[in-house]
């Protein structure tokens, strides 16, 4: 039986790429410490920043929010309702789980419902605008990015955090390399710096494998949406993840090296943009865009027969579940932890 490297108790997980086995208590502690380290290593944010976490109800985003909360950062959540049913009420369920999570911890969750706000669900918008070759994922990503930017800007958040893990990032990197998408390669990383009108984007979980973010959620007892979005199956990113996992089986650490060595090469200056594109402001929504005129989001609405200028003047404010008076104990679930979780307030910048 595998024993925890720190205390010798039976391990709950063995991470082959680190040759590290840990018990529940020490895994949870390690996970929080590693996240804090990544946040500092890439200068993602400090306790002074106002962070907005994109919450989907899935294991990664709820894990991220839980860790930031335990570390003592100011992090509110943003849930974007996509209007996806797929016979499992995917959107309704994931919203309920996100709200439950926020309530239990006394955290503030902002909710933007796309069908309510724009009058169309994501699958319908994809169909009507004839974008994405039958899959709503491209439109879905576009809408989510636009709405995150909009809410962050309008409500004064300077950092947007997402729960992308290493498997997500390695799959994207693999896709970008297969096509030699230099424009994307230059921009891919754990931090996308702020630009005029755009909050900084950060991914504090980029150094964890997907099975580790899932293990964290399970061990912390966080209920998350287990079912996939009905449109995920067959997505290119899934194919890339499976390929990388085949490699990982043969060579533990292959995924980690693939991604981390890419970041190292970037830091050494191997991926530089010859000339950054000039940014324009979208004529309707004001968000930065690479071409003059309308941004991709507003163009998509127009293609779907919706006048972006019309909806944009009457946009409802996002609903917010206000923090409850009683706040659950941050350390709960890691209760047995002998070393207390390091709070962000105690952090000193290097």
């Amino acid at each position: 039986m595998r024993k925890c490297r720190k205390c010798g108790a039976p391990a709950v997980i063995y991470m082959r790429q680190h040759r590290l086995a840990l018990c529940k208590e020490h895994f949870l502690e390690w996970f929080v410490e590693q996240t804090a380290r990544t946040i500092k290593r890439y200068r993602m944010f400090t306790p002074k920043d106002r962070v907005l976490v994109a919450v989907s109800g899935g294991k990664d985003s709820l894990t991220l929010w839980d860790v930031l909360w335990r570390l003592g950062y100011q992090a509110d959540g943003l849930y974007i309702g996509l209007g996806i049913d797929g016979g499992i009420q995917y959107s309704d369920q994931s919203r309920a789980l996100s709200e439950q999570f926020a309530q239990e911890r006394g955290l503030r969750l902002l909710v933007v419902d796309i069908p309510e706000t724009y009058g169309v669900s994501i699958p319908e918008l994809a169909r009507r605008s004839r974008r994405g070759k039958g899959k709503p994922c491209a439109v879905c990503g576009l809408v989510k990015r636009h709405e995150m930017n909009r809410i962050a800007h309008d409500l004064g958040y300077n950092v947007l955090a997402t729960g992308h893990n290493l498997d997500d990032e390695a799959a994207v990197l693999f896709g970008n390399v297969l096509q030699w998408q230099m424009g994307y390669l230059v921009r891919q990383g754990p931090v996308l710096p702020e630009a005029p009108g755009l909050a900084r984007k950060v991914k504090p979980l980029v150094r964890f494998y997907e099975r580790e973010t899932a293990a964290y959620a399970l061990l912390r007892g966080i209920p998350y949406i287990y079912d996939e979005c009905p449109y995920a199956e067959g997505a290119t990113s899934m194919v890339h993840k499976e390929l990388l996992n085949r490699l990982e089986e043969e060579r533990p650490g292959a995924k980690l090296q693939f991604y981390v060595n890419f970041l190292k090469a970037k830091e050494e200056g191997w991926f530089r943009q010859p000339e950054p594109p000039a940014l324009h402001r979208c004529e309707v929504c004001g968000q930065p865009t690479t071409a003059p005129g309308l941004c991709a989001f507003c163009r998509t609405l127009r293609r779907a027969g919706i006048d972006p200028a019309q909806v944009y003047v009457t946009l409802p404010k996002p609903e917010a579940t206000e923090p409850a008076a009683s706040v659950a104990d941050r350390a709960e679930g890691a209760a047995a932890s002998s070393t207390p979780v390091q709070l962000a307030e105690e952090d000193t910048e290097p």
Partner: protein
Amino acid sequence: MAQEQPTATLELRGKRYTVPANIPIREAIRRAGLSPEAVLPVRDGELIPDDERLRPGETIRLIAVISGGDA
């Protein structure tokens, strides 16, 4: 003379896979045609490392960990 091989069961999303017992769970996952990187094994409600050996007759629940799309 052929002897009965002891077996165990893996269960993923309601599907059951019969695999030989007394081999590491990781190996059994692979023999079931699944990816050990894409699941976490649970024994009696507790997560366990996947290099642990399968006990004859037991059922190990597997939790899928891969999520897709642009989510």
